[in-house]
């Protein structure tokens, strides 16, 4: 059923089939409805729809916490994993798969962006697309010596010392506003 729901989300289902699937979803069939919701959640996250990302992590965590805790069995890693998956009730398999895919996708997005700049990027960062370069640039708080850099540089720029020691800067504010 999940594959059919996926096709519906991706707009790959035929008209009649789509109607049938929608009816199935709306008829409160738990598995199909859950798959529908999760596929849309992942799709929205991938498309950068931030309004839907609120609480996403919490929901995924909650869902994972609902998964029954299983006792370890003396098997090889792959066998253990397969056995673990087999023991999961069918109702949870697709939500978990979708959740893991969602988490992996979001993590991949974040890791990919940060890696393009610096692997040691600070925690308080914000990635932005910038002009003059195809790369994303990680915004960080200014270094403590920012005023010294500015003062040392300003002698060679058409600007004067308007940003000397009297100004403390905060980079993460919109458009690099300066805090007074």
């Amino acid at each position, binding site marked *: 059923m999940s594959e059919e729901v996926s096709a519906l989300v991706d707009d790959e289902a035929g008209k009649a089939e789509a109607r049938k699937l929608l009816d199935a979803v709306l008829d409160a069939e738990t598995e199909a409805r859950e798959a529908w919701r999760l596929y849309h959640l992942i799709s929205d996250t991938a498309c950068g729809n931030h309004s839907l990302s609120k609480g996403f992590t919490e929901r995924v965590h909650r869902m994972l916490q609902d998964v029954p805790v299983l006792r370890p069995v003396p098997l090889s890693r792959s066998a253990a994993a397969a056995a673990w998956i087999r023991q999961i009730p069918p109702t949870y398999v697709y939500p978990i798969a979708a959740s893991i895919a969602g988490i992996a996708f979001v993590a991949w997005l974040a890791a990919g962006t940060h890696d393009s700049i610096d692997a040691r990027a600070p925690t308080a960062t914000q990635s932005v697309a910038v002009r003059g370069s195809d790369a994303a640039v990680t915004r960080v708080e200014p270094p403590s010596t920012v005023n010294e850099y500015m003062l040392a540089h300003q002698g060679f720029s058409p*600007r004067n010392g*308007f940003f000397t020691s009297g100004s403390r800067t905060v980079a993460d504010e919109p458009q690099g506003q300066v805090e007074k």
Partner: protein
Amino acid sequence: MIWTRCRGGEGLRTALACMLLSYACVVQSEPEPLKWLKRIQFASQKLSYSGTVVYQQGDRTETSRITHLVDGHEEIEKIEFMDGMPREILRTNDLIRCYLPESRSIRLERRSDQRSFPAILPKNLEKLAENYEIALGESRRIAGFNCREVILKPKDDLRYGYRICGDLHTAMLLRARTVDSRGATVEQFTFAQLRVGSVERDQTRTSFSAHGWSIEDSLLTPANFAEAGWSMPSALPGFAKVLEVRRRFHDSPGVGQVVYSDGIAAVSVFLEPLQNRREPVRTGLTSIGASNLYTRHVANHLVTVVGEMPPGSVARMAETVRYSQTR
């Protein structure tokens, strides 16, 4: 023909007339915007004036009072900051003294090519045409003066554009706007009030009693970082190296600074040894007005690129910095 008449020996008057005529021909052949730009550049550096300057960036505004005196070969400038912590900058020719009452200190800087609003234009204006399209803009009225705008439109997306407005009578620069690729204002300097001439020397003295204040001298010394193994193989197109020095920061006695300029925009590359750092270093981009700073680690150094140019340009510049061990 002019040359023939001049050589004809009709005396000094004829020679002078020839010179003036030749100069007039040269000036006439120049494009109008460049001629106007030259007048603005000359007036902003050679006139004595005092006025109030308003700086705007986003929804932030700062006001300062500027007094500029030209007396023979001596040029004195005083900038008083009216907002935030009181502070003053005094410049006498190449020597800059920054008075910081909060830390009871005076910071000294020596700069050979000091340019600040309103004297923001370089001496070699022709070079600007290599990187900017120069055109006349609209006529405007600023601070009670009728002025004419010159537009400097960048030929690529590596630098910002500028809109510069000069008084039609004195050619004094009244407003300078930095604009991005969409024409939106990144930052702006405007004279809210201006008085040309009538500046007394007393007006250019500091208002602080700096007795007992500490003096911090940046102590610039010439340097050659290529010999030390540093290279910036593909600096930004249109930018040429104008300075290479070692300077003193608070905790770092040997911070390198290499400055590149395209005539109006400048970018500094700082090379700071990491062992002098007492705190963890964050790498990435910081924006302050039209200026962007990009920091990264290279060979146990902190490389910081500062420039009044788009973020991607400073990042691109920083990424070109390389170090290879020398013998």
